[in-house]
């Protein structure tokens, strides 16, 4: 009950972590099934339809329901602490964002047991995804599930933007903000400007499928390429929504364990902004082969390659930070250091793909699959592992086991390269992506076998990580405030895990790496910016949960609104949008309740703070 009504950002972080972890597990199992199908030529482990469902759900689940929520988990756990705030700007919305994400994800995954999962790829290209080619409710689960989950992401993005703008502690100017706070800020801005595009795309596709509209129906004047434009104008920025937070994490972990300040802090900030900006102008590099023409292709190719410049700046800054530092290879730092070469390789294949003429060869082959897994798994997932190991003691008050951590790292990174390195060659040799099997004796056999073995090894790495979590959770919570001893930022100046109110007194920030600065000045902790006083806290509430249940019901109702449930009462309920209406009523009713009942929250008094 506590968990359902909480509005505390630290608990919401944990909710995001468990939910994201759950979906990550589901997506991982889907990946292993895909790899098992491809282990040998002409395999019949799954049929073509199931294979399509597996790849679609794997991609969709991983991106929207796996890694994004884990990113949000870390942001929620860390950002208010790093900027010296007692909370996010809108605790209620924070909870609402989590619950809509969760119910959207549940809706999407229910497709497995409710008549067929989406089967048109995670990009849901039209006309493959129109009713003519995808006859089950699968794609409806995709459009409506993602719509609901996307709402949660958008809410989260706005909340973090407002939090960073308004809740920074005294003295924390923008140019004193930790890099993770910066990348969260920029990522949230990308979310704000990219997600509404996919919102519209999903609405249009839903209307085509459920209301018989013609947006993507060439026979009635619609345009399938329009979907690609809308999808990628969201989709390309989305890849930066994924990678920038990882950049932020790496920029926190490396200075801590190199015991040096981040090299080129301000160039890092500007590189981040530049990447975000350029990210909005390159979407058509996913569409070189749709026939945009040579001029458009050339422009998009060049603008894409430009992104390599700020990205390169980042890579060199991390290397220069490590250079000459007294580096400690703890688990988080292993992941961070492993990130650098792996991500760089993904960037290099990206530039190769950005060459439009060459892309005519690479497009829709395993070369592309290798590219984006190098950036997403070798980049983002490694970054998340680094971040989770790094902030685990802050989140849970317990240090993860270092030995198991190192095992996780080595099995994971070796498995990763085994899986995806060979896919570059498979692609160059002409193996197409999204095809459920291949013929023997095309030189695909061995490399596919290697790839599947690698995937198994990554699975083992993940299991070791789970074991580590279980082992750790049995230990007493005894992590120090600053368990890595070289913490530089504000979150390490308060207890692990932090009390509900984070900071007894708001800290005064006197420079970049605020805590490090105080340590170097010989102080034991932060100087407070205010006397101990009564602290205002928001009250817990079940409304965000209930509102999301309402949206969930409405989504279901709408999805089945054209179905014939053998006549009778159920058909009546759905066909007249009664179920939809009921769901919306629950949601709007809760909104009304929220606005009518004034909630002043509660206060923690100074006596209580001292008596802890």
């Amino acid at each position, binding site marked *: 009950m506590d968990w359902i009504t909480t509005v505390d950002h630290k608990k919401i972080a944990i909710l995001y972590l468990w939910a994201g972890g759950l979906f990550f597990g589901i997506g991982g199992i889907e990946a292993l099934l895909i790899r098992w199908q491809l282990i040998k030529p002409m395999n019949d482990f799954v049929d073509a339809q199931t294979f399509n469902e597996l790849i679609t759900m794997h991609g969709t689940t991983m991106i929207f329901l796996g890694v994004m929520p884990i990113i949000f988990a870390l942001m929620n756990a860390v950002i208010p602490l790093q900027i010296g705030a*007692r909370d996010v700007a*809108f605790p209620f919305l924070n909870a609402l964002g989590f619950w809509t994400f969760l119910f959207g994800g549940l809706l999407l995954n229910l497709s497995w047991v409710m008549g067929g999962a989406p089967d048109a790829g995670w990009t849901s290209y039209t006309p493959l995804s129109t009713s003519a080619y995808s006859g089950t409710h699968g794609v409806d689960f995709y459009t409506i599930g993602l719509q609901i989950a996307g709402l949660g992401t958008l809410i989260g993005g*706005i909340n973090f933007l407002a939090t960073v703008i*308004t809740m920074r502690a005294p003295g924390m100017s923008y140019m004193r903000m930790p890099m993770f706070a910066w990348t969260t800020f920029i990522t949230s801005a990308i979310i704000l*400007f990219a997600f509404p595009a996919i919102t519209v795309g999903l609405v249009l596709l839903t209307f085509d499928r459920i209301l*018989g509209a*013609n947006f993507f129906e060439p026979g*009635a004047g619609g345009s399938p390429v329009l979907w690609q434009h809308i999808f990628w104008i969201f989709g390309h920025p989305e890849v930066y929504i994924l990678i920038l937070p990882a950049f932020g994490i790496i920029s926190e972990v490396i200075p801590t364990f190199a015991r040096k300040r981040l090299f080129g802090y301000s160039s890092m900030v500007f590189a981040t902004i530049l990447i975000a900006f350029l990210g909005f102008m390159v979407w058509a590099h996913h569409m070189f082969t749709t026939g945009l023409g040579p001029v458009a292709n050339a422009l998009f190719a060049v603008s894409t390659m430009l992104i390599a410049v700020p990205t390169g700046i980042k890579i060199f800054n991390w290397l220069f930070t490590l250079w000459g530092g007294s580096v400690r290879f703890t688990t988080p730092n292993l992941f961070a250091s492993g990130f650098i070469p792996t991500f760089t390789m993904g960037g290099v294949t990206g530039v190769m793909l950005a060459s439009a003429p060459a892309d005519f060869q690479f497009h829709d082959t395993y070369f592309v699959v290798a590219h984006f897994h190098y950036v997403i798994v070798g980049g983002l997932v490694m970054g998340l592992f680094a971040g989770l190991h790094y902030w685990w003691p802050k989140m849970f008050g317990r240090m993860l086991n270092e030995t198991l951590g190192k095992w996780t790292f080595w099995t994971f990174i070796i498995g990763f390269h085994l899986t995806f390195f060979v896919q570059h060659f498979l692609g160059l040799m002409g193996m197409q992506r999204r095809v459920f099997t291949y013929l023997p004796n095309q030189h695909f056999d061995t490399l596919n076998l290697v790839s599947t073995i690698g995937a198994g090894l990554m699975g083992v790495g993940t299991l070791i990580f789970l074991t580590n979590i279980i082992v750790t959770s049995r230990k007493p919570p005894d992590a120090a405030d600053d368990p890595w001893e070289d913490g530089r930022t504000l979150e390490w100046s308060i207890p692990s895990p932090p009390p509900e109110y984070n900071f007894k007194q708001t800290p005064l920030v006197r420079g970049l790496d605020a805590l490090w600065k105080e340590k170097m000045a010989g102080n034991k902790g932060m100087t407070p910016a205010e006397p101990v006083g009564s*602290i205002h806290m928001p009250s817990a509430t079940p409304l965000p949960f209930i509102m999301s249940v309402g949206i969930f019901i409405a989504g279901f109702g709408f999805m089945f609104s054209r179905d014939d449930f053998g006549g009778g009462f159920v058909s009546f309920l759905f066909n007249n949008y009664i179920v939809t209406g009921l769901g919306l009523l629950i949601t709007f009713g809760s909104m009304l309740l929220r*606005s009518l009942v004034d909630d002043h929250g509660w206060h923690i008094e100074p006596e209580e703070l001292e008596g802890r």
Partner: protein
Amino acid sequence: MTTSHAEPVHGGLPHEPEKATAEGRNKVLAFWLFLGGEAVLFGTLFATFLALRGQTNEGPTANELFHLPLVAAATFFLLVSSLTSVFAIQAMHRNHPAMLRNWLLVTVVLGLCFLGLEIYEFTQYVRHEQFGMTTSAFSSAFYTLVGFHGAHVAFGILWISLLIGQLGYKGLTVVTAPKIYVSAMYWHFIDVVWVFIFTVVYLLGKVG
């Protein structure tokens, strides 16, 4: 942390009650951000409409359908309602809850007039012109863009009406003021969107 006080400050309200508390300021800021997202949303819908507006699939064309006097009347109602919502905010800043309520009421009534005309327009098209959601790519794009805007108007009407009710029994405080202010921002936003719809959909449809 700044606390929120429901009671008016020192008996009277500060000059800009919507910005008197940290919560209020946050709310206004977040709403600006939200409107940024809404702008992208409508931008995408406009782009879709522009891409598909010629694809009439042998159904009615824009030129055959649109009846400018009707649309002009709707435009008039909506533009004036924006003005009245400005008056409402001015009344709020002068701490005149009764005036505030009256101007909000006028705004809602004008919004209802707009919505009524739009519903009338749509039913005309469907009944007499065989122009429905499924007719052509153009029709789908038209109903989705204009309908989305209409849904926003409807939501705005509901929202402001509820705020009028709330004003009735809670009065004008530093808690209710930001809500009213933000709803006025929303109302201006859908008004601006309508100006674009009027130009891009209707005027361009008639002459372009």
